[in-house]
Every structure is written in C-alpha cells, then in structure tokens.
C-alpha cells in the first residue's frame, strides 16, 4: 500500500510540469494546475511515508523493464522513508512558494520550463530513493542531475548563471562517471543489478572490491554532497539558481548524495575501521571549513550554500561514527551516529529550505543578494525577519530547535567513544566533538552576521530602503518550515520511530534499536528543557515588558558615543564583522583583503573589503582544466589538413598493426 502511494506521488509530481506546457505563456492557469498537481502528488507521497512509518508494512514492486536483467524494482524501507520526507515536503512547499516568487506572468520566457524541470527533479529524486535496482538508481540519478542543471540555468542570459551551470554540469558528470563504475562493480560483486545487502554467502565480494566500491561511492556521492574538497560546484550553483530551486538543491539534492552513501555502506559487509575514520575526518573538515568559508561570504545565498557544506559535514560525522560503530561492534555508536545522521538530514532540509525561502523573499523584496547593501529589513519585512531568525537559531544547532537534537545525538556518540574504554576503542573520535563545538560557535558567528547585516540596523542602500514584504504564498511555506523546526525541536520523540526504522534498515543486526535509543538519548528531557526554555523566555519577556510598562520609555536615536550625527554608513559592515574570523582562518581560506591605508591628512572616501573566493575552484580545479585544454589544443597539429600526411597515418598504422606481437 505505502509503496503504491509513494510511487503514484512520485509519478504525479514528476509529470506535474507537463500539462503546464499546453497553456499560454501569459496565462497563470498553467502554473496553478502544475502547482495543484505537485501538491497533490507530494501529499500522496507523504501519506505513503506516514503509512509506512505507522504500519511498517510494505512490499517491493518488481516489473520487467529492459534486457540484461534490468528490472523496474522499487520499494519503501526505513531509509527511503526518512529521505522521502524532505523530497516531498520541500518540493510541495517549493512549488507553492513559486506561485509568488516565480509568477508565470512575470517570467513568461522561462516559467513553464522551470516548473517542468522542478517536477521532474522532485519525481526523479523520489525514484532514486525508491530504486532497488542499480540501473534504475543511475537512471533516476542522471534525470535528477540534468533537471537540476536546467533549473540552475533558468536565467541563462546572465553570464554568471551560465558559468555556474557549466561548473555544476561538469561536476555532476564526474560524479556520474564514478557511479557508472560503482554500480558495474556492484553488479560484478552481486551478480545482478538488484541492490541487496552483500555477504560472503550471497556474493563474491572481496575486501579489495568492497573498498573500491566504497571509495567510488565516496567520490561519486561526495561530489553531489559537496564534501570538501569536492564542493566546487555547490556555492555558485546555489547562489545563482532561483531561490526555491536553491532550497530544493541544498535541502534535498545534497541529501541524495547522502542517501547514496548511506545506502551503499548499508549494502557492503563488515566495513573496516578506516572507512568510518575517513568519513568522520572528512565530515569534520567539511564542517569547519564550510562554515569558515560561510562567515567570509558577502552574498547571502553563497553564505547559505557554504553553510550547507557545513551541515553535510555534520551529517557525515554521524555516518562516520555509525560506520566506526559497525566495524568495532558497538551498537550504541551505530544507533547514535545513524540517528544523528538521519535526523540532521531532515533537519537540514527543513531549516535550509526555510533559509533559502527567506533569502528568496529578501531578493523578491529588495532585488539584491549583496549583504552589504541590505540592512534594516526587520521593520519592512517583519515576517521574513522572524522566519530568518528562527532558521538561524535552528541552523546554529541551538535549543530549543530541531538541529540541536540531531547534533545532540552525534555529540553523545562522540563522547561515548571516549567514555567506553573497552578494547578495541577509537578514542580519537572524541576530538571530533571539539570540532563540532567549533562548528557550532562559528555558525553562531556566521548567522549573527547574516541576520544582523541583513535585517537589523538601518538600510545601507536604496534596495533595502524600499523593500516590501512578500505575499502569503511565499510566507506560508516559510511558516510551515519554521513550525517544523520548532516541533522537532520540542518533541523529538515524534520522529523517533522513523529514525528507528531507518537505523534498523541500515544495520539490521543491531537488536532492539528502539529500546536502546530511548536508553541512550533522553529525548523526554530534551522536550522538557525545550518547553522550560520557552516558558522561561516568555516569563522573562513578560517581566521585562511589565517593567517597561510601569516605567517611562523614551525613544531616541542610537547613542553614537558622543558623535552627534551618526549615519547609516557608520554601521558595522558584514565584512568588518567577519574580519577577525577570516583572519583566523586565513591559512585555509586565502581571503582577498582590500584594505586601503587612508592618506593624506584628509583622506578620500574609501572602503574596506574582504572577499573569500573558493580556493579549491580558483587555484586547483580551473588551472588544471585550462592546462589540459591547452595540451589538447597543442595536439591539434596532428590534423593539419595535409592529405599526404593523412595517408601516411594509414600506412604507419598498417605497419604497426602488422608488427603487432
């Protein structure tokens, strides 16, 4: 039952864009129809997921499809269920958001194409998660990658959009190359395209082959997840895409990479310790560097994009912990790590979707993403501001919101690696907890900067001076996501069953996951403390406001420390705010600092700027590509247009082959 609901949902969402093609460019009806279809399909899908989580009953759907034993084989299980939630939720909200953000009447030239690929993207991702056949997985994977490309290049008349799209396309094709090899190897190992857990008995998988598969998965899915240093495509793509696209890219597409890695690791038998260690280390690095890069950004959406890298890092830390647990036979670590990993997947989808929606609303209201030309929006766009601050608190993993819970799991697991002294131990993992703490603190810095510079203080430019609040069609989805963050944060026990079934699917040999999880992580306490916190805040607030009511309250301009004419340009800019941190991480970020020395006695107007370009892209990837291209152009002399030489080639080949051993 559940699988049919999900399948139908996926198909409907995937096809939702096609009817819209039949409508006139200038008509809104097509957009409405598409949106309704998408909402309906996604709704069905979510129903299916809930059904599965409640009843747990499901059956695989298997049909013959293509020769060579390629069958249409889809099923829902714990892992799929967890990953299906973001897929359907974000695509549902995204298409509603689009009603206001990308109105057909305002974007006649590309609106229909956008919605077509939006639907395709969502549908294909649902299929990725459902696929139980390597070929089907690849198939859906590529559809996803390509529709994402078309979504990124929606406004392809802008050069930066074209460049972003191109980099994305190259990166995703690299990933696909890895996956081709990966699934072919899996086929060799298991003897069929069917994806099932390999063991010594049911497969001829050798340790070497398993490692190869793991590394290929890490490479292929890593690119898609944007692990450092494979993240090069991510920032520009997220920044230049329309915001509801950025939301689904960051919120869901990256998760498909995670899903792939999680799924493949679940298939391979007894992983060596190194795998977990690698994943954990990569996670820590991505987390710290990702957020450090985020702090330095001046483009709101680039900032969010880098913070996605950070969160992927956190997710990977969870996965790494779980892997370590599996190789050392510590069910506790498996459970905590996996719970953290899976829950953070959902959380990140919620709050990152929320943040990109907010960013979109800011762009919609002001027409710019430049943090330093915004400011003071909290008064003009109160609801967006509220959603943004909720998202920021969530993204920093602060209580009482959702991502605190997932990080809580991971922290517990990491601490446990130190506490549990029985051999063989892996206490070094404990250090990752410190890294996680650093990530948290940096995230606070990053999002205080973002919120402060965008919404607080006073307007820094005309853009933000004439901003206007977004329509309900955009605020609604944002509200829903913000609510989701709060609910999971206050009542994590609600989502625990889903997590449990996910963990069970990933590590079937761990007994009594539900019981252990309850024992390991005091979720009720989190709820209690969360509610306590909220109540306390409410109390404090009412105390303050009562005092304010009883006492006189005046309003004046900000105290300029004796300076009588403070003006908006005196505000701290985001660059200055981030400067100290950027300097701290200069060894990794190679920031470009524009710091003019004021001269002469009455200096001209000048400005201070720090830009943090992507080192990996600018100093590693692009140079390599250009070098190869130059090499190839040099090889062009082989074809000089001289027919005698051509005939000589034939002759030489002839001789060479005749002398073939």
């Amino acid at each position: 039952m559940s699988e049919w609901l999900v399948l139908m949902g996926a198909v409907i969402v995937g096809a939702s864009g096609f009817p819209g093609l039949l409508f006139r460019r200038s008509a809104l009806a097509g957009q409405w129809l598409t949106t309704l279809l998408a909402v309906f399909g996604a709704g069905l899908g979510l129903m299916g997921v809930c059904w599965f989580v409640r009843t747990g009953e499901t059956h695989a759907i298997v049909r013959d499809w293509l020769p060579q034993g390629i069958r249409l084989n889809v099923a829902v299980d714990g892992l799929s269920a967890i990953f299906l939630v973001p897929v359907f939720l974000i695509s549902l909200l995204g298409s509603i958001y689009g009603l206001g953000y990308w109105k057909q009447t305002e974007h006649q030239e590309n609106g229909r194409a956008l919605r077509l690929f939006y639907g395709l993207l969502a549908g294909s991702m649902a299929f990725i998660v459902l696929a139980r056949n390597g070929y089907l997985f690849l198939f859906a994977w590529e559809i996803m990658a390509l529709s994402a490309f078309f979504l990124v290049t929606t406004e392809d008349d802008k050069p930066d959009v074209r460049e972003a799209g191109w980099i994305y396309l190259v990166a995703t094709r690299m990933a696909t190359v890895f996956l081709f090899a990966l699934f072919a190897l899996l086929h060799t190992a298991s003897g069929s395209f069917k994806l099932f857990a390999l063991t010594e008995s049911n497969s001829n998988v050798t340790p070497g082959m398993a490692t190869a598969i793991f590394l290929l998965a890490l490479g292929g899915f890593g690119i898609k997840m944007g692990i450092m240093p494979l993240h090069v495509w991510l920032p520009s793509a997220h920044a230049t895409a329309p915001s509801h696209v950025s939301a689904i890219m960051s919120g869901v597409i990256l998760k498909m990479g995670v899903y792939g890695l999680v799924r493949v690791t679940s298939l391979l038998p007894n992983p060596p310790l190194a795998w977990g260690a690698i994943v954990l280390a990569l996670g820590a690095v991505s987390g710290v560097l990702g957020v450090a890069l985020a702090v330095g950004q001046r483009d709101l959406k680039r900032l969010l994009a880098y913070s996605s890298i950070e969160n992927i890092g956190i997710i990977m830390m969870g996965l790494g912990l779980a892997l370590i647990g599996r190789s050392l036979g510590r069910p506790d670590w498996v459970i905590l790590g996996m719970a953290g990993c899976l829950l953070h997947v959902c959380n990140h989808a919620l709050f990152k979707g929320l943040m990109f929606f907010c960013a979109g609303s800011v762009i919609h209201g002001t027409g710019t993403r430049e943090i330093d030309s915004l400011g003071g929006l909290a008064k003009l766009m109160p609801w967006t501001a509220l959603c943004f601050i909720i998202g920021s608190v969530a993204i920093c993993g602060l209580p009482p919101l959702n991502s605190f819970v997932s990080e809580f799991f991971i922290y517990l697991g990491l601490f446990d690696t130190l506490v549990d002294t029985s051999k063989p131990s892996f206490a070094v993992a404990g250090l990752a907890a410190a890294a996680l703490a650093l990530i948290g603190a940096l995230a606070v810095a990053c999002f205080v900067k973002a919120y402060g510079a965008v919404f607080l203080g006073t307007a820094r430019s005309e853009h933000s001076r004439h901003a206007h609040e977004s329509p309900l069609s955009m605020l609604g989805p944002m509200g829903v996501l913000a609510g989701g963050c709060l609910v999971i944060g206050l009542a994590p026990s609600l989502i625990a069953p889903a997590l449990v079934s996910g963990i069970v699917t990933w590590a079937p040999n761990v007994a009594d996951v539900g019981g252990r999880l309850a024992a390991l992580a005091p979720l009720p306490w989190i709820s209690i403390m969360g509610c306590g916190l909220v109540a306390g805040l409410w109390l404090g607030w009412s105390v303050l406001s009562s005092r304010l009511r009883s006492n006189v309250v005046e309003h004046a301009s900000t105290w300029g420390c004796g300076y009588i004419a403070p003006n908006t340009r005196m505000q701290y800019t985001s660059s200055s705010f981030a400067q100290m941190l950027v300097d701290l991480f200069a060894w990794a970020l190679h920031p470009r600092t524009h710091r003019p020395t004021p001269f002469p006695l009455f200096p001209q107007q000048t400005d201070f700027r720090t830009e943090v370009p992507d080192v990996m892209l600018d100093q590693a990837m692009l140079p390599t590509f250009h070098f190869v291209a130059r090499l190839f152009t040099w090889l062009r002399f082989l074809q000089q247009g001289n027919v005698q030489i051509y005939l000589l080639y034939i002759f030489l080949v002839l001789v060479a082959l005749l002398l073939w051993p």
Partner: protein
Amino acid sequence: MNTLVNNTIHILLAVLLPPLLLGVINRTKAIFAGRNGPPLLQPYYDLIRLFQKGSVFSTTTTWVFRAGPVVGLVTAAIAVLFVPLVNSTAPISFKGDMILFAYLLGLSRFFTTSAALDTGSPFEGMGAAREVTFACLAEPALFMGLLVLARLSGRLELARMLGDSMASNWTTSGAALALVLLSWFIVLLVENCRIPFDDPNTHLELTMIHEVMVLDHSGPALGMILYGAALKLFIFGALIVRLAFPITTSSAWLDWPIFVLGMLIVTVVIGIVESTTARLKMTHIPILLVASCLLSGFGIILLVR
C-alpha cells in the same frame, strides 16, 4: 539531607550569590589599587535601582533588542541548574546535559550579539564581532575539558563529571585535570569579559567587548544584562570550584559553606589576576585562547595515549 533541601539551597545560592561575586572582585581590585572601592553589596543596589529606572530605546531597534537581555538572563538561569555545587547532584541532570549547558550559553550569545547589532551603532557591532570571534575559540576549549572529564568519570552528566569521583581522579591523573583547570580558567575570563581579555569598567568604547555591546541598553533591560552576567560568572566559578576543590565531606551542612568559600576564593583570584595583569592587545587574544584549547587538548592526549 534530602535532595529537596539541597536543590532549594542550590537555587537560593544561584539567585542570591552572583551579584556579591561582582562586588568581591571589585573590592579586591580596589584594595590592590589602594582605594576603598564600592561596598560589597553595590551590585545589588545597582540592580534594584536599574529595575525601577525608565529606559531609552533607539529608534532603529526592534524586538530583538529587547529579547537580548531576556534570553541572556533566562539561559543563564537554566544553565545554572545543571551545575553541581557541592556533590555530584544538580537540580536537573540527565545524560548529555553538558551539551545543552554549552548550547544554552551559545543561544544567549546569539541574542545578545544580535541585540547589539540591532542598534546599528558601529561600536556595538564591533563588540558583537569580538564576542562571537572569541567564543569560537572558547567553545572548543570548554568541550575538550568536558571530554577529559567524561573520560575520567565515565559519565555523561555534568553533575557526575564534576562529581565525587573528582577527588580520586586528581590522584590518578592530576596532570590532565590541571591542564583542564588552567584552560577553563582562561575560558572563564574570556566568557565573563575579564582582564586580560576585556576591561569591564574601561571607558574607551573602542577597546571594549561586552560592555560596548550593551551601550544602548538602559533601565530594566540593563539590569537583566547585569544580573545575567553575574549569573554567568557564578556558573563558571562553580565549574572551577568543582574542578579545583572537589571536597565533599560527609555532612552537607559542611559542604555548602566550603563551596561558598571556594567560590569567594575563585572570585578573589579573578580579582587578583585582573589587577595584576594588563589587557592584552586585541590581536593577541586569539593566541591565548588557542593555547587554552591546546591545553585541554593535551589533557585528552594524556588520557587516551
């Protein structure tokens, strides 16, 4: 003595003691400076007066500006419930509460700095920037210390980590604990904006961290901030006390005075440090913080090697 009484005392202390600590520090510094200084209870007077004062709000500010002080106070008030004072119990204690403890402080930081930015004043922005920057280095130090304690005590509740086992741990692995003590003392100084990191009663805005963030706050809001700061000092003081003097006698009637004594000692030490050292150059502060991270990092290495 039953836990109920213990908890009441705990809460009473948490409510009443903090302002006194400020007073003690100021008095110590005054003595070092050869002045009489303000009376020990001066902070209480200030608080009471502030709560009766009217307030001025900048026209640029929003609700965030008012939320800042509230969050700062409330989070501190909740965090204090996790900290053990006399033995390995606290009013609230559950597995992993130390993480919530740390993140509550993070939450307060988020809102106080946001409130600072809300005014749009360059100086408060400056202060906020410094606050978050230094916190980035203090946080890992705090966690490394927690890791050491978790390793030693084998428990994941803050109360237990700093609990009875502490005394014995000093004998078994004192080196690691000493390192943690040192690094946490640094954390205490930076988290509470004490010299050598910040001068709570300097008068040059350019050099301030915490004080400059609250320039625009006035009246009850400022009072809440002041009280929250004191509470924070109390919290970290308590941590240091549990680390440095893990003395738990048989009778609780003895324990509480001992704790208060320890607390006073700590505050005096802070006062001494403040009056004997000069403020660090802003650019040198990160180095000291990194050092504190490394200290507790070594602590871990010592344990897991």
